[in-house]
């Protein structure tokens, strides 16, 4: 595989404060610690720049150089040609991944799914007709075998909230991209986060940004798609608690996020994949309209026909919690997960204009479902289902 790899910073060289801590070198950035413990063969240099620092803070900027050009000759002309309908989906059990698997299967692709070995595996993928292969992004040695005979990789994997994200999202992705390059994968579709370049203080966004850069430098034929938010997540976060009359937690943040249906994202991705004009491009998929959490809650209340028990947590509290959890080593991951609150506190619209994107891939914007329609469908169906259940169970104490 790659013999010499070092990190190149995005031009121009910027130094990023990786980890604010109140002590000196004793707590190095955990990212660096993890990297140094790994066996991945890339030398790196850490420079501590002497940029003027505000008093009282100590910044440990990590200047990493990343050179993704591999020295392995990708001469695969002797191999058997791979059918362009062979797709590998990484993260196939996730919210977005399963929709991609379904849509690809429906359109006639041969789909291979990379899942982690589990005692009780997710069988729905096999039921649909996809081939399931075992592998783990945090164990790079398991990756090459899964890439044999694959034409396109669709990468919708990310670390679960309870796992440290750097292992999967950075090292795992780097390994996957290197492996793909070495094995001659002909297209790599990567999902990133909108505005990831503007929020370096959020670790996940920073990692996504660096991964984008790595992918672009690697020379693979790729498509990068930046996403804003999923409508499916709103169901679990707001719609279900409202229906069950539990408390709904929302922030008072003014940030507006554009949510999009994962089925639409899957459909657009597959259309974009087939379009040669989209190669090497960076697209952003944002939903039709950007919503704040308060608006979403109001919409859910209206559609459910009942008032929600709303607990509003001020964003300042989130930030405070985040600061506190960063005090301790073992709560760093928690702090990372809360990092998005930094984004929430700045008044931004987390959306992007989609007209150019739609015209580029040839899609009608009317085909993209709106949040109102989506939630309306959901509530109609779930209320109908609950009524059916009530009729079946003959219980009279289900209240709506």
């Amino acid at each position, binding site marked *: 595989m790659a013999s010499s790899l070092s990190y190149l910073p995005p031009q121009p060289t910027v130094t990023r404060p990786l980890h604010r801590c109140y002590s000196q070198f004793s707590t190095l950035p955990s990212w660096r610690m993890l990297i140094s413990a790994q066996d991945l063969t890339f030398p790196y240099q850490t420079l501590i720049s002497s940029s003027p620092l505000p008093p009282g803070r100590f910044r440990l900027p990590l200047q990493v150089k990343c050179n993704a050009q591999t020295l392995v000759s990708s001469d695969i002309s002797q191999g058997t040609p791979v059918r362009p309908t062979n797709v590998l989906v990484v993260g196939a059990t996730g919210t977005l991944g399963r929709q991609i698997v379904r849509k690809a299967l429906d359109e006639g692709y041969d789909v291979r799914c990379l899942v982690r070995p589990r005692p009780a595996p997710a069988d729905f993928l096999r039921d649909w007709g996809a081939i399931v292969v075992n592998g783990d992004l945090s164990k790079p040695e398991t990756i090459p075998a899964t890439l044999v005979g694959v034409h396109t990789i669709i990468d919708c994997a990310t670390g679960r909230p309870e796992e440290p994200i750097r292992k999967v999202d950075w090292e795992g992705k780097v390994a996957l991209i290197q492996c793909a390059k070495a094995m001659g994968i002909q297209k790599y579709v990567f999902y990133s986060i909108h505005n990831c370049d503007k929020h370096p203080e959020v670790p996940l966004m920073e990692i996504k940004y660096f991964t984008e850069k790595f992918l672009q430098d690697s020379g693979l034929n790729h498509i990068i798609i930046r996403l804003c938010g999923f409508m499916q997540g709103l169901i679990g976060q707001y719609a279900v608690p409202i229906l069950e009359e539990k408390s709904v937690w929302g922030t008072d943040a003014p940030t507006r996020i554009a949510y999009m249906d994962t089925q639409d994202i899957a459909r657009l991705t597959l259309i974009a994949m087939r379009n040669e004009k989209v190669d090497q491009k960076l697209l952003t998929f944002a939903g039709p309209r950007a919503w704040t959490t308060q608006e979403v809650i109001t919409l859910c209340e209206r559609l459910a026909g009942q008032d929600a028990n709303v*607990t509003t947590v001020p964003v300042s509290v989130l930030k405070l919690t985040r600061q506190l959890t960063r005090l301790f080593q073992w709560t760093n991951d928690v702090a990372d997960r809360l990092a998005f609150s930094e984004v929430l506190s700045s008044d931004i619209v987390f959306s992007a204009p989609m007209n150019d994107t739609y015209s580029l891939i040839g899609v009608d914007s009317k085909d993209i479902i709106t949040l109102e329609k989506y939630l309306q469908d959901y509530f109609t169906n779930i209320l109908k289902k609950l009524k059916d259940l009530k009729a079946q*169970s003959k219980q009279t104490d289900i209240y709506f």
Partner: protein
Amino acid sequence: MVLHGGRIAAAASSNVLFTRTRFLGLSPANTNNFTSTSRCFSLSVPISKLSDGDGGEKGKRGGKIGAKKQNKEAKKEDVPSPKEAVDLVAEGSGSKQVSLSLDDVNPVGLGRRSRQIFDQVWKKFSGLGQLSTTSTDEDLLDSVLIRGPMCEFTIPEAQDTTVLVVGATSRIGRILVRKLMLRGYKVKALVRKADSEVIDMLPRSVNIVLGDVGEPSTLKTAIEGCNKIIYCATARSLITADLYRVDYRGVYNVTKAFQAYGWEVRQGTYFQDVLAAKYDGGMDAKLEFIETGEAVFSGYVFTRGGYVELSKRLSLPLGSTLDRYDGLLLSIGGNGRSFIVILESGPLADTSQSKLYFARMSTKVGFCRVRIPFSSFRPVKPDDPPLDPFLVHTFTIRFEPRRQRPPEGPTGMTQDPRSFKLILEYIKALPTGRETDFILVSCTGSGIESSRKDQVLKAKKAGEDSLRRSGLGYTIIRPGPLQEEPGGQRALIFDQGNRISQGISCADVADICVKALHDSTARNKSFDVCYEYVAEEGNELYELVAHLPDKANNYLTPALAVLEKNT
């Protein structure tokens, strides 16, 4: 509110130890700490419920949701809000008097419950700080979002339908099986060998049945339980015998098996005895019943221009009328003659006003089944309105020697064209189905090398004809040369004229099959389909029906609506 928030933050930061599963060693030691914090929780909140109250609320939810929640881990225990904490300590003066069990004061139990509450609260809290959350309430969401009505693949009729896919290992068949599984159909696949390669190729929940379309006996188990059949098998080689076996006899066998199994012939009318036999001008004809119970109508017409008729008043069972049916199915053995079926319709009371409608039917040497849809009946007098099956009261078969076409029989048999013999096994009325029962994927032959093309086309055509004659609701799809591309990207053209030249992807053909399963416009139609051909200027030879794929992709109905039925 802010006060509570602050408290939560304080509690969060100091109790974050306990949620880290890595640090399990710490938790028991600090239970006391925790309990004290939980006490401070409960002091500041009104005490209104006990742990029993939680159970009560679960019962209140009732139904499946409650059961689901109880099945889940503690994560989803019902915690309405942080305000209503579990009062674990008897000291607080509660507004409700409830009895305490030992569990309530057991410190381990207290610790566990507190941890559960805390996990709940913390999960919600940290969820605020994330962009998109992964949901753990999989069952309910799944049933609505993934497999339920919110999913764009779900078809409501799919739950009750079992589809038999013949040729599930073919290129189209594989994609077809996957699409059916995605939409929730139950699929049975007929394969010749159930070896590991085949089993790997098909999704797991497909019911694999061993059998061969050339052997009718093996088809019986395959057909059991199926409502619909999709036949996409084709001969793997170009040997004539193979073609004959798969494309012609195979279709025939499967249709026979399907009819024998479950195609209910509702309210057939049978000829019991002859009431009237009209003669006209010198002939000798008789109708007799032979031992097997069949009616034999035979005779000899002496004069030219004469004809023999056999007619019967229909005595339908009470309450059924022919308008619920699509046509007639006759199982007859003629000797190659053609006959005319005449229906007389009109008000029963006044026979003089009846109108006559006729349809020609030709028979082969030997037995065959002939289906005559009501739509093919023409009025004898051209001004009459089209046949209204509701008013039909008399059924007549007529033999006219004058209009005989040369019989299709083995050559060398010279028969007197004026003699006829018709053995009637039964006459049934064809039920009108709204949907098609049998989808056959045939071919146009444009992709095959010309040396074998005739043979292939002949076999395919024979298969198609046998399907049309069988009386089942059919849809015959004839795609252009198949390509291995993902489907859904290009516009498709539907035509009925043998004019197409472009290819089409296997996935699109599979898509058409799936959509045609429940489409009433697809019933009894056969058509060609291929990609849209962008013609150069001045070269447009044909106007075909094309439709671009859009999101809803209901292209089949409008496309097929303009095509002719029963072709």
